[in-house]
């Protein structure tokens, strides 16, 4: 029987197997493994059965630790169970993994291997996570490609049942988990054929059951623990052989053959690389190329890493081997060598001694590191590793792929060396996130992979920004299976789908001579040439490139496609590349349109069809002139005026050339300067707000809601207007307290994302033309230069004295300088306005602990950070520890600061004689309640430092080191709902209970936004989210109510779009409260499926319908005999349905499961009513006056 070929990534391939072979699947989102859980949840919600005809139970847990616990329990009671994870998630599973292995329980976990956070977090791939599991007693099996991931997933499940050893099946995060490749599908018969049902029944018989009770999980003493630990040895000894038996059975049934160690290459090779993971594919491609040119090279691909079969390893090596390079995709700082390297050295020593295999003498072995965090691993690098082995003294403990000019570990390589065969078509596409480029390319791979005998591969590189992000698609098509597990560097076809990229990326450097360049251009074939930057013209001429243009923007508009140009550019690709005959390709595109969009309605299908029809008549080949005509040069990534580190390091990363930076360019401990986002000048907005001075009422709301801090307000003396650019706007300040001063609202034109929230929120309308407001979206290009000048002038106007600003009044408060600006968050983000507010109010004395999630990514993903400093150099100090420990991490800040402040006060007392009693007393008794107090205390501290400089005692030096702690610090613990409600809840609860003065800000988007919208316990009933594909069946957890139950926690629930003054009040009260404060902030999110421009209205309707409550619980009121709870929401004036209808997350259920939607919507209404009644009761209840409790 001919098997079906399909194109998919490894996550989908593995989920296909794991879902069908299990009964209980416990899941938790973590990149890059989340899609495996998402597939499982979706299939379960659609009733897809496993191979035994039953639909698995898929359950989302609160953390990976929870998922492992649930799987452990399911296994113990006889079910077949699995989970999917990576990185820190896998680390959280380790305790249970030890137990599961110790109890000899068959199970398989699938891991898309990802970097473990060290000096920085990285979502990309290496083996540092799986290598941390070596001591758990799990078998470890590695897949190198998408096909292998599917095959070895099945082999792992079968082998685990046979051996009773649990299996960790892993493959490289992103490079394999997200690579789309054409694979031969395993069907359910293949799966059933490999699973030995007798072993399943034995697993069931061992289950805990009151029908035949046993005891497991005992505690043991020194007398017997050790012996019992050794009882498992025979199982481990037998395991490799059982795995090979399963592999052989698989080969017999399916036809693909695997071994514990697969040797490829010359049978008489002297030089051999040993490795595992996707890099082995590149290595195999390279040795095929080099052996074809007379080299004698070999490669050992490690399949079963644990239990490590010394015998099988030795048997895999040809007798001719003289040198071995062992490559590890991980770093174990301080070790003798990396794990595989050390294992190989030991295994050779032991194996040769015991006479295994064909080797007569011990080969020389060197170890090297490659590919950390998905660093490219190319044939050029493979060649360098073999070349190193040729040397008299090969470099050991080397690195490959980087330039290590600090420890000099790196091998040099010839980046021009390539093994790409001519038979493979290689294409690169530069697109803008969400313009459809990636989707179109995935479709193209499908079309070619599934309609022809060609093999196809796609890999997609994304930006680290969430708005205005560039994507680069790397596609290969060819007659042989494609093993090139690295990016395309020599492309036959380069397409630029966005005109603006011409000035930003050197796209044509990858184009081969005579290759094709397709440009989406607003200029036609006759005029485009003169508009190209000079370097682009140079390369087109030098490479004799065939140059095509299409105005896809126009075709998209005409066919109703808006900004999505996917179909149009896909047609262009097929028409130009001739990968398929044109008619055949267009027919296939039409069919794929029907497949992809059919379920979304005929309307969508038709507009795509129209786009197909319109495309070819708009596609033109450009007659390339022989001469250069352009004077347009590529601008530098960062302004030349940026500080050296920013310009020469961060700027290079921003330009997409971070791979070129050597080790010495970087700080050793992961520390970076703040205030760097301002150098990016991304210019991604098509329209930016323009201020109408006459209509403006100077309320400050536009600045308050601006998610990117690009709308700034200053109030200043008119003398500062001297030298203002001609178009700089200013008007008289309206606030009575600012009489005689000037007022300016200025937009940062090159940092704005064009979200339009400011215009939506503006309450002032032009009286003659009501469509206009006091701030209006206006095309950016003509404003770019004049507004850039205005912005630079504006920045030079001094900030208003903070001591004179009434922070409780939005109009005044909004002139405070934001110390959070120009983040790469989604355009119109609902979280960032709260962070900006925090930075305005307390930023110059704030320390921020930030849980992993969206806020840690737009807050701290290289190259830049939006956290910044004021003119005095003060600003938020920010760090991200982990996802799960953020509350504890922040509490650590508080404990440390408090201790150092206490020590400082002690030292002030001790040194009061030297520094002066008056200063000492003032330092110790400063109230520090408001800006003026803090200003004065800072002056005192400056004076103190001055005096201490003149004292030469240990105590004086001690006090100097902690003197800054005498100024009040504001500790903020920030994160999303995934952290606060789920994975970090235990810590959050403990920190609240501690009574310490910390401020916890929960940016509640009601889903795990950063990992792509998985349900959390904050997800409201009836919302569709990943892991809740059938609509969340239970109500949102009431975190605020739980926190209030302590009595000593300040709790506020806010929604800026509903009542901005309430939000401001809550922030001020929370920070002023001398104890733990919790602010739960409604944060609209792109994952809600909403009009982000009008998202503040969604917040308003959420409150008006009772779906979201506004309240403040202040323990200080209880001390005064007042009810501590103020319910700031009014009785709901509309139905929850009004709100649900505004958001796709709710509405889509009415289209996917209308009956469930009806029931859940009714329950959501009931939830809102019941919650309002409860809060109303709590807020109205009489309270006895109670003494203020010491919370600490």
């Amino acid at each position, binding site marked *: 029987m001919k098997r079906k070929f399909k194109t998919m990534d490894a996550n989908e391939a593995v989920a296909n197997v794991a879902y069908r072979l299990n009964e209980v699947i416990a899941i938790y989102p973590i*990149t*890059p493994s989340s899609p495996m859980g*998402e597939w499982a*949840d*979706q299939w379960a*919600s*659609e009733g897809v059965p496993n191979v035994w005809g039953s639909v698995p139970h898929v359950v989302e847990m609160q953390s990976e630790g929870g998922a492992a616990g649930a799987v452990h329990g399911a296994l113990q009671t006889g079910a077949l169970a699995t989970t999917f994870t990576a990185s820190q998630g896998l680390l959280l599973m380790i305790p249970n993994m030890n137990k599961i292995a110790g109890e000899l329980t068959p199970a398989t976990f699938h891991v898309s291997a990802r970097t473990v956070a060290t000096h920085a977090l990285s*979502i990309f791939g290496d083996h540092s996570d799986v290598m941390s599991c070596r001591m758990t007693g799990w078998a470890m099996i590695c897949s190198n490609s998408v096909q292998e991931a599917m095959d070895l997933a099945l082999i792992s499940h079968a082998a685990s049942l046979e051996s009773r050893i649990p299996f960790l099946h892993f493959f490289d995060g*992103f490079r394999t988990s*997200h690579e789309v490749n054409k694979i031969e599908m395993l069907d359910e018969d293949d799966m059933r054929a490999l699973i030995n049902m007798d072993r399943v029944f034995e697993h069931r018989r061992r289950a805990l059951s009151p029908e035949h009770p046993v005891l497991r999980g005992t505690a043991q003493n020194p007398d017997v623990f050790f012996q019992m630990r050794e009882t498992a040895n025979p199982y481990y000894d037998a395991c490799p052989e059982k795995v090979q038996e399963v592999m052989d059975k698989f080969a017999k049934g399916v036809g693909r053959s695997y071994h514990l160690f697969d040797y490829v290459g010359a049978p008489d090779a002297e030089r051999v690389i040993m490795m595992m993971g996707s890099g082995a594919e590149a290595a195999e491609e390279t040795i095929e190329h080099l052996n074809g040119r007379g080299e004698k090279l070999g490669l050992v691909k490690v399949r079963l890493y644990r239990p490590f079969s010394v015998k099988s390893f030795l048997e895999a090596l040809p007798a001719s081997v003289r040198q071995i390079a062992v490559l590890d995709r991980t770093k174990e700082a301080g070790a003798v060598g990396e794990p595989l390297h050390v294992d190989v050295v030991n295994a050779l020593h032991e194996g040769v001694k015991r006479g295994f295999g064909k080797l007569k003498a011990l080969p020389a072995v060197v170890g090297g590191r490659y590919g950390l965090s998905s660093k490219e691993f190319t044939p050029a690098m493979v060649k360098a590793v073999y070349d190193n082995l040729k040397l008299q003294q090969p470099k050991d403990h080397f690195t490959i792929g980087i330039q290590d000019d600090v420890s000099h570990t790196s091998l040099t390589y010839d980046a021009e060396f390539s093994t790409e065969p001519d038979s493979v078509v290689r294409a690169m596409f530069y697109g803008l*996130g*969400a313009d*459809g*480029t*990636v*989707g179109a390319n995935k479709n193209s791979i499908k079309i070619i992979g599934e309609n022809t005998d060609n093999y196809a591969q796609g890999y*997609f590189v*994304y*930006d*680290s*920004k*969430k*708005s205005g*992000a560039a*994507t680069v698609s790397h596609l290969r098509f060819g007659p042989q299976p494609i093993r090139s597990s690295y990016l395309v560097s020599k492309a036959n076809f380069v397409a630029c789908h966005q005109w603006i990229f011409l000035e930003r990326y050197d796209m044509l450097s990858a184009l081969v001579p005579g290759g094709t360049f397709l440009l989406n251009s607003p200029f036609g074939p006759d005029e485009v040439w003169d508009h190209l930057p000079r370097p682009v013209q140079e390369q087109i001429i030098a490479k004799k490139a065939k140059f095509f243009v299409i105005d896809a923007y126009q075709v998209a508009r005409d066919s109703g496609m*808006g900004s*999505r140009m996917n179909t149009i550019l896909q047609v262009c690709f097929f028409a130009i590349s001739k990968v398929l005959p044109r008619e055949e390709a267009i027919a296939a595109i039409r069919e794929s349109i029907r497949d992809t*969009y059919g*379920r*979304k*309605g*005929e*309307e*969508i299908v038709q507009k795509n069809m129209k786009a197909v029809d319109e495309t070819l008549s708009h596609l033109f080949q450009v007659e390339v002139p022989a001469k250069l005509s352009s004077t347009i040069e590529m601008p530098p990534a960062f302004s030349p005026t940026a500080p050296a580190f920013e310009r020469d390091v961060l700027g290079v990363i921003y330009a997409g050339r971070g791979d070129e930076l050597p080790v010495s360019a970087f700080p050793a401990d992961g520390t970076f300067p703040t205030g760097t986002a301002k150098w990016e000048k991304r210019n991604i907005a098509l329209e930016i707000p323009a201020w109408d001075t006459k209509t403006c009422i100077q309320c400050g709301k536009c600045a308050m809601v601006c998610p990117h801090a690009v709308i700034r307000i200053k109030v200043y003396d008119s003398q500062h207007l001297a030298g203002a650019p001609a178009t700089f706007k200013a008007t008289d300040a309206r606030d009575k307290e600012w009489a005689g001063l000037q007022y300016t609202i200025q937009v940062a034109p090159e940092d704005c994302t064009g979200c339009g929230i400011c215009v939506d929120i503006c309450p002032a*309308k032009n009286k003659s033309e*009501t469509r206009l407001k006091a701030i209006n979206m206006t095309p950016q290009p003509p404003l770019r230069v004049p507004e850039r000048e205005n912005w630079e002038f504006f920045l030079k106007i001094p900030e208003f004295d903070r001591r004179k600003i009434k922070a409780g009044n939005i109009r005044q408060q909004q002139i405070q300088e934001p110390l959070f600006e120009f983040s790469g968050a*989604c355009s119109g983000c609902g979280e960032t306005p709260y962070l900006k507010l925090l930075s305005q109010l307390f930023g110059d004395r704030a320390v921020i602990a930030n849980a992993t999630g969206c806020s840690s*990514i737009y807050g701290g993903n290289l190259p830049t950070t939006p956290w910044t400093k004021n003119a005095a150099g003060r600003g938020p100090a920010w760090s991200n520890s982990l996802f799960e420990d953020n509350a504890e991490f922040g509490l650590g800040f508080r404990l440390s600061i408090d201790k150092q402040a206490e020590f400082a006060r002690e030292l002030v007392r001790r040194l009061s004689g030297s520094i002066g009693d008056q200063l000492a007393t003032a330092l110790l008794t400063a109230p520090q309640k408001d800006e003026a107090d803090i200003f004065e205390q800072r002056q005192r501290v400056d004076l103190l430092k001055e005096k201490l400089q003149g004292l030469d005692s240990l105590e004086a030096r001690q006090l100097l080191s902690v003197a800054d702690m005498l100024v009040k610090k504001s500790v903020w613990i920030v994160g999303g709902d995934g952290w606060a409600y789920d994975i970090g809840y235990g810590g959050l609860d403990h920190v609240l209970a501690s009574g310490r003065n910390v401020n916890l800000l929960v940016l509640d988007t009601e889903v795990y*936004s*950063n*990992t*792509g*919208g998985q349900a959390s316990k904050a997800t409201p009933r009836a919302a*569709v*989210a*990943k892991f809740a*594909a059938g609509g969340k069946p239970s109500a949102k957890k009431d975190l605020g109510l739980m926190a209030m139950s302590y009595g000593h926690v300040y709790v506020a629930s806010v929604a800026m779009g509903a009542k901005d003054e309430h939000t401001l009040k809550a922030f001020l009260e929370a920070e002023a409260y001398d104890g733990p404060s919790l602010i739960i902030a409604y944060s609209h999110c*792109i*994952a809600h*499926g*909403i009009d*982000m421009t009008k998202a503040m209205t969604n917040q308003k309707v959420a409150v008006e319908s009772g779906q979201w409550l506004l309240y403040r619980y202040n323990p200080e009121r209880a001390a005064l005999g007042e009810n501590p709870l103020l319910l700031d929401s009014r009785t709901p004036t509309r139905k929850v349905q009004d709100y649900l209808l505004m958001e*796709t*997350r709710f*509405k*889509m259920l009415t*289209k*996917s499961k*209308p009956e469930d939607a009806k029931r859940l919507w009714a329950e959501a209404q009931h939830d809102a009513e019941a919650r309002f009644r409860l809060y109303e009761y709590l807020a109205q209840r009489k309270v006895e006056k109670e003494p203020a409790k010491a919370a600490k």
Partner: protein
Amino acid sequence: MVDLTTRYLGLKLRTPLVPSASPLSQELDSIRRLEDAGASAIVLYSLFEEQLRQESLELDHYLSAGTESFAESLTYFPQPSEFRLGPEGYLNHIRKAKEAVGIPVIASLNGATPGGWTQYARQIQQAGADALECNIYSIPTDMDVPAAEIEQGYIEILKAVKSSVSIPVAVKLSPFFSNMANMAKRLDEAGASGLVLFNRFYQPDIDLDELEIKPNVLLSTAQALRLPLTWIGILYGRVKVNLAATSGVHGPEEAIKLLMVGADVTMLCSTLLRNGISHLRSIEQGLVAWMEEHEYESVEQMKGSMSQIRCSDPAAFERAQYMRAVKSMQHVLFPSRQS
């Protein structure tokens, strides 16, 4: 006992009182209650062609917004294998309504342009509707489209729908034609079984606080019956189609007046939304009481008795009547001119 029966769209109805398309027919329970209160048939709420199209576009837009931009969040929603974006919900509602009540169920399809109508009409028939009301709802704002083209559009829509169904089709339309009578005639000739007069078009309001245009649906008042009364009176006896009066029927008097000018049925909506479903029963009782008091035997006897062709003063339906009305109001409008 008076005979209230009437015929409409080929259906024999117990009375001429039919609830028109409104939110009242969205729940099966209220459909049952309408039957219990004496509705002789029911027009279901409208299936909006544009709404279905809009929902599909919206879903596509929001499910793909922001996708494939950032490596950790390549999508934001699960991708169900199928969506129910077509009229399935509405079709199910027809089926359930048919099972729930014994009275005829008339489906309502609302749209503006030729297109998806025919497909939906066929599905509506297959779902068991006894008849179909096509609500052609368009407010032409393009100054370059001549009236004739718009009118022809109505005819094309009707023909397309008629060609795909065998159940009777009524057309609900607005009064805003240069020659309403000609339009009625052409629709009659094109195969309409009934005309529902008239549609109440959305007319926006202004929110003075927010300086915004507010979509604001007003319930009709009894005064609204004058327009259908005029045109049904003029059309009665001149076209073959059934005539249904809608707008302004708030009590038995309005129903009687409309029947007298020639309506086959009188449709009710605002009064039931305002006074509750049970008000239907009292209108019927009022109708019977009036007929008994005035010794009418049947609705058929009354039907058209005051129409233009049968009334004593046909000119009263025309411009002459307007002049008279103006004259009679002159002392109120221009008291100073009074001699």
